[in-house]
Structures are given as structure tokens and as C-alpha cells.
């Protein structure tokens, strides 16, 4: 049986030829994403802004207007109602009440009682109440954890490779995280704690590809000391292309199954990682690698450490 080859043997694609065009496109996409976040804003869930969220499943399709009127009749402030996952499940979001935490607790009970009374066969799936204090902490922790992960990984890469590679990793991660946030601004999908977890996962996996390519670049830099940097990057990208494709596709296959058949509650988490894998694969080819050219990586970038190793070996 002949084996499937996603990428033919001995490809020789000139990736670097398009690097300036790709750079412009990436910059536009990143700026557009950040602008989108600035203009449209993120649909932050109760995790980050506080308030209450009641998730309920109804016996049949519900007239959203009627549901909105029924919730508003409770006088709990501006309620927002969103379909969630399937047409019988809705999220009812209530703002933080003025009367402190105990008032918030009563609001959820009121919604629960109202649903039981007016919507036969409805079922409350979950109730989340987050106070302003906790939501502020969660937001700070979330932002901090993403920044720390990005920095931590970049520093690790710097130690294992050279400083240019660390900078490349950081820029790549910035691009990937911006694009993910842009996606959430565009779709207005709810941003909750799961999305932070998704972004951290993307940070890990996007760099996974990058590291494999960097590893090959380092190997080739040591092997072909006379080769110019651009052809060397092309060679490294081509050599690792098959692996990049197979691994990315394998992850996408698994996540695709989860998107279609998996639990609705983690749709946001899954779709974010799914898209992040795409973006990460692109950026590992068109951002992490060309940046090495701009930062002036030369065949002798690894010579110093090499020399040291040689000298050490001779002494021993």
C-alpha cells in the first residue's frame, strides 16, 4: 500500500521569497486585530467583569424576546440573553447588583424561580456569580499568566539558541495572541477563563512548530557554514515541512472531531485552539524564520558556543 505523502519528497519551495509580502500582511493582520479589540472590544464574560450568568436549557425553542421581557420584569438590571451552543440553550447574563454580594445571590434565585414557573420543562444547567473583586483578580491573573508564558518561553529559547531566536519567538507569540484576540473581537464570542487557557495552549503549541524549525536551522547553520542565511532558512523550512504539516493536521483532526461532537460548553476553548494551530503554523514559517534574517543571524552565530565545546573537548 503506497503511503500518503502530504508533502512530496525533497521539496524546494522558496518560502523566503515572499517574506516581505508576508511581513506586510502579518503586520496588517496584527494591527487590524488589535484595532478590532480596541474598537469592538471583547465580549468579556462574568469571569472578568463580574456579575451573574445563568445557563438554562428549555424544552423547546424559546422566543428570545419573551425570555428577555420575563427576565427584565424581575428588575435585575440590564440583562443580556444569548443562544449558547444549541437553539434550546441560552445564557442569561445579569450585571453586578449595587447591593453587594447577597443581592447577587438573590438575583440568581429569582431567575431560577421565574424559569421554573413560566417555562415548563426548563432546566438550569449552571449558575455563576463572580464579584467585582474576584473578576478583577481573574482578569489580572489571566493577563499576567499569558505575558509570563510568552516571556518564559522566549527566555528559554534564548538560552537554548541565541538571542535572535528568543526575539523571534516573542514576536511570533505576540502575533499569534493578537490574532486570537482579534478573532474573539470579530466574532464577539464570549471570553471567559477557558479562553485564557486556550491562549496559553496556543502559546505552547505555536512555539512547538517554531522550535522544531529553529532546531533544524541551528543544525544546518553548523553543518553548512558557507551557505547564505536565506537559502539556509529555505532548506530548513523545506526539510521540516512534512513534519509541520503532519503534526498540525493530526492536531486539527483531533480538535475538529471535538468541535463537531464534543461538549458545547467548551466550544470557545476548542475553536480558539483550532484557529491558533493554523495561525501558529503560518507564523512559525513566515514570522519566526524571516525575523532571523532581519536580526542578522549568520552562519557563525553558533560558532562561539561551538568553539567553546571544541576547546573543552580538546582539553579533556
Amino acid at each position: 500500500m503506497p503511503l500518503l505523502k502530504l508533502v512530496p519528497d525533497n521539496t524546494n519551495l522558496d518560502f523566503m521569497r515572499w517574506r516581505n509580502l508576508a511581513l506586510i500582511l502579518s503586520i496588517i493582520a496584527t494591527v487590524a486585530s488589535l484595532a478590532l479589540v480596541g474598537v469592538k472590544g471583547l465580549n468579556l464574560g462574568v469571569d472578568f467583569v463580574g456579575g451573574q450568568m445563568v445557563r438554562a436549557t428549555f424544552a423547546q425553542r424559546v422566543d428570545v424576546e419573551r425570555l428577555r421581557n420575563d427576565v427584565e420584569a424581575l428588575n435585575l438590571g440590564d440583562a443580556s440573553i444569548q443562544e449558547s451552543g444549541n437553539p434550546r440553550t441560552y445564557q442569561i447574563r445579569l450585571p453586578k447588583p449595587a447591593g453587594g454580594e447577597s443581592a447577587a445571590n438573590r438575583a440568581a434565585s429569582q431567575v431560577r424561580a421565574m424559569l421554573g414557573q413560566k417555562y415548563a420543562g426548563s432546566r438550569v444547567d449552571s449558575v455563576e456569580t463572580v464579584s467585582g473583586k474576584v473578576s478583577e483578580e481573574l482578569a489580572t491573573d489571566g493577563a499576567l499568566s499569558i505575558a509570563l508564558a510568552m516571556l518564559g518561553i522566549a527566555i528559554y529559547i534564548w538560552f537554548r539558541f541565541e538571542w535572535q531566536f528568543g526575539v523571534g519567538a516573542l514576536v511570533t507569540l505576540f502575533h499569534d495572541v493578537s490574532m486570537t484576540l482579534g478573532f474573539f473581537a470579530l466574532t464577539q464570542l464570549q471570553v471567559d477563563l477557558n479562553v485564557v487557557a486556550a491562549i496559553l495552549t496556543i502559546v505552547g503549541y505555536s512555539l512547538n512548530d517554531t522550535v522544531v524549525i529553529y532546531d533544524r536551522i541551528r543544525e544546518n547553520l553548523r553543518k553548512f557554514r558557507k551557505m547564505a542565511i536565506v537559502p539556509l532558512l529555505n532548506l530548513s523550512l523545506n526539510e521540516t515541512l512534512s513534519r509541520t504539516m503532519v503534526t498540525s493536521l493530526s492536531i486539527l483532526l483531533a480538535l475538529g472531531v471535538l468541535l463537531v461532537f464534543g461538549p458545547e460548553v467548551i466550544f470557545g476553548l476548542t475553536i480558539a485552539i483550532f484557529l491558533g494551530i493554523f495561525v501558529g503554523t503560518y507564523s512559525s514559517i513566515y514570522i519566526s524564520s524571516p525575523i532571523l534574517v532581519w536580526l542578522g543571524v549568520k552562519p557563525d552565530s553558533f560558532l562561539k558556543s561551538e568553539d567553546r565545546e571544541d576547546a573543552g573537548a580538546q582539553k579533556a
Partner: protein
Amino acid sequence: MLDFPRWKVWSITLVILIGILFAIPSTLPANLKARYPAFLPSATISLGLDLAGGSQLLLEADTADASKQRLAAKEEEVTQELRRNEPRIEIGDISTSGGRLSFMVRNPAQVDAAVERMRTLTQPVDGLSGQRDWDVQVVDSSRIVMTQTDAGMTKALRDAMTVARDVVRRRIDPQGTKEITVINQGQRRILVQVPGVEDPEALKALIGQTARLEFKLVDLTADPIQVQQGHAPPGSQVLPHVDGGFVAVKRRSMVTGDQLVDAKQTFDQQNGAAVVSIRFNAAGARRFGRVTQENVNKPFAIILDDKVLSAPNINEPILGGQAQISGNFTVATANQLAVSLASGKLPVKLNVIEERTVGPDLGKESIEKGVIASIGATFAVILFMIVTYGRFGLYATLGLIVNALLILGIMAIFNASLTLPGIAGFVLTIGAAVDANVLINERIREEQRRGRKVLDALETGYKEAQTAIFDANITNVIAAAIMWYFGSGPIRGFAVVLLIGIVTSVFTAVNFTRMLVALWVRKARPRQLQL
């Protein structure tokens, strides 16, 4: 490459067998699990609250209230020491404002003695620094000011939170039979997880009550008009009555809830109303008896959390140490109060600052869908691997299955919780776990293309792929570790699955599949690798 010593084969097999043995209980359906031999490991992966259904509350200590209570207790202690113990020192103008306790010593000659005795009321916070929990200072030559030190407050809060945790546990689960989690989080928080609770209102009512019970004499000398305006004579205080209005009571308690041995919900024998019957310990009963004897025909107030529940008349001395608390209770609220009193008062008021409740059906659906997605994803990846790498894909597949079982086994060993995002982590790991094999296989392909012989290609492939595998996985470990550190509950569940998955996938790819390949090559001696 072919040099795969027997001990290595055995140890790899052993690790995998142990992993599978621990994974089995979590994967068996309930009816088969009952028949699973008892000598084999039975620990299963527990389900997080978002899958099992239940309620999670995050409680935070009201530190302002804690500080107020500490001041009040200190005031009681100070007056007791100076006014009742010999030699007596007359003091006056006691105030507890601004987080400080200050009072005047009437006779200037006694100031030094008073300071000396106040010092005996303070405790060292820790043995090394010699710092004490209160600062004692003299201002204006006759006024003594006692200030809580930061270290003292920290220690008091720490002690209070430990007690509070136990009280919360007793209140939610008086019999100690439920599988609840009550743990301290940080300096001033308690995390409560109760599986199976759909409506946490009753839970919150139980925890929300400090249940500080006090019996105090009503101050009959107070001017009723002044009292309604909130002014009380010296030595008394004004407290709100639950039925409206205010009551002036003596500051000094006759007896408090600390001296209770039991509290039960019962019914009043005269009017059938729901009440709480309480029983004092010996010392409390004696004190209660003596005070009621001395104050027959005067009213006393039953005070719960600084609110007067009722202020009945003392018709006769109450000597048996038994009393009844009435106050417009329903059976449910009386029961709640009884449980709260019996479990002891909370040393500090707790506020619910976060609450998450998940119904049981949502979790059940999520698990079903999660299982379907996991199996579907596994098959998709297996198919992809086999069409891409043939025999080597099959080995990668075997590695994948072993990897999935190892993840489950390790989770069971550590009793880790599977959460909803954890399911996503599991599926993601299935997709990503083959990466190490992909790296190796691609490298072998490459080396073979370069003209290396089978053994040489295999050897180089495994060797050269190692650094990439290691570096690439470290980035995931960094991200997942940070997620674990900052995350809570469900997110932690996700991070745990990712972390375990990274370790097991590297183990299976580098050791297990390598072993399979080595054993095959040794037996079949292929001239060419179809890869």
C-alpha cells in the same frame, strides 16, 4: 538501535502495565467495576465539579469585622483585668475607634502599673523577632493606647481562618459523611466544593451566619428616646431588634454561645412555634443560673450576630443550663440556626465572593459527548498515522493508545480531577502526542533518502530527533505549568491533563515505539524501510 537490552524491555513493559492497571477502574462501567478483583488498584479519576454537578463557593473573611471583634474581645479582657483583678485600677473613657483601644487611667500614679499589666495581656507573635500582637503606648501621661500590630493581625487572621474552615465543614456536613472539599486558599479565603448541590441557597444561608450568640441584660436605665437615636448610657450599647426598633443592652455578656454544648430545633410547648433549644456547659450553666437569679423580673436580650432576636423577661432563675431561643423562626430557619450554633460561631464573618453551580445533567451530557469525541479523535488520528507511515504509523498508534491509558492511569494514581476543559486537553493531547513519532519518522525518511542504510537511518533518526522533541515539549510544559499555577478548578484540570500528556507522550514515543521498532527490525531484518 537494535541494542535493546532485556531489562529495558521489561522495565518499559512494567511501567506500561502498571499504568494500564491503574487506568482500568476509571474506564470500566459501574456494573463491571463491582466485580473487579479487590486486590487490584481501585482508585478512579474523580470528576471535577463542572462534570459531576454541584456547587462551589469562594468565601472571603471580612477583615474589618474581624478587627472589630478582636477589639471588642480585648476591651472585655482589659476591663476584666483592671477592674476586677487585685490591685484594682480605675479606668474610664474607653474607646475602640480607629482600630485602637484606648482608655484613661484615673489615678496618674497607677499608669505604670497599668501598662505593666497590659503588657501581660499581649502575646509574642513568633519566637524569633520578639514582636508582640499588640503595641502598648502611653499618650498624654494618663491615656493608654493599645494598637494591633500587623504581625498580630496576620496571626489572628490565620488562626481564625483555620477555625473558620473547620466550622464551615461542620456546618455543611455535620455527620462528616459527605465528599465535600473545604480548604483554605491564600490568607483570607476558603474554597468550598459540595458535589450534588443544585441550589446553593441553603448552603449559603448556613455559611452566611456568623452565629455569634450572646445573652445580655437589657439596660433599663436607658432613656427610650435616646436609645431610638442610637445613644446608650456608659457601659451599654444600642443594638437593632429584628422586629424593628432598638434596644439598649449592657456591654457585658451574661453568657455566650461559646459555652454551648448542644443546640437543637424543637417546638415551643405553649404555642407550637419553631424554636431552638440550647444547652450550656457546666460553667455556662452556673453563670447563667447566677445572673438570672440576681435579675429576676428584669428582661434580658438574646442577641445573634449583633441583632436582638428577642428580649424576654426573667420570670424565675434558669438553673438547669437549658434555654430556648424564639424569634419568628420557620422550621427551616430554626434548624439552620441550630446547626450553626452547634458547630460553633465563625471566628470571622465570611462573604461569598464567587459562586459556581452546575446541574447534574449538563455534566452527564458533557461526559458522553467528551467520550464520543475522544474515541472519534483517536480513530481519526490512528487512521491518519497508518496511511501516512504504514508500519511505523501502526507503532505510533500503539504508542498513542498506551499513552491515553497512561494518562488515565497517572490521573487515577494522583486522584486528579477530570474537568470539562480537561476533556479538551485529553483530545488535544491525542492529536499532539504523535508529534514525537512524527518527528522521528520524518527524520528516518529523510536519512533514508540521503542514502543511509536501514539501521543507520533508524539510529540517526531517533538520535537527531531527540533535541527537537525535548525543546518543543519544554515550550508546552512552560505554558501548561503557568496555567496550572494561575488557574483554578476547571483550568487546572486542563493544565494537569496537558502536563501528564506531555510526559507520557515523550515516554511512549521515545521508549515504547522505539522498543517495538527495535524488536521488529531484529526479527525481520528489513532491507528497505517502507516509510
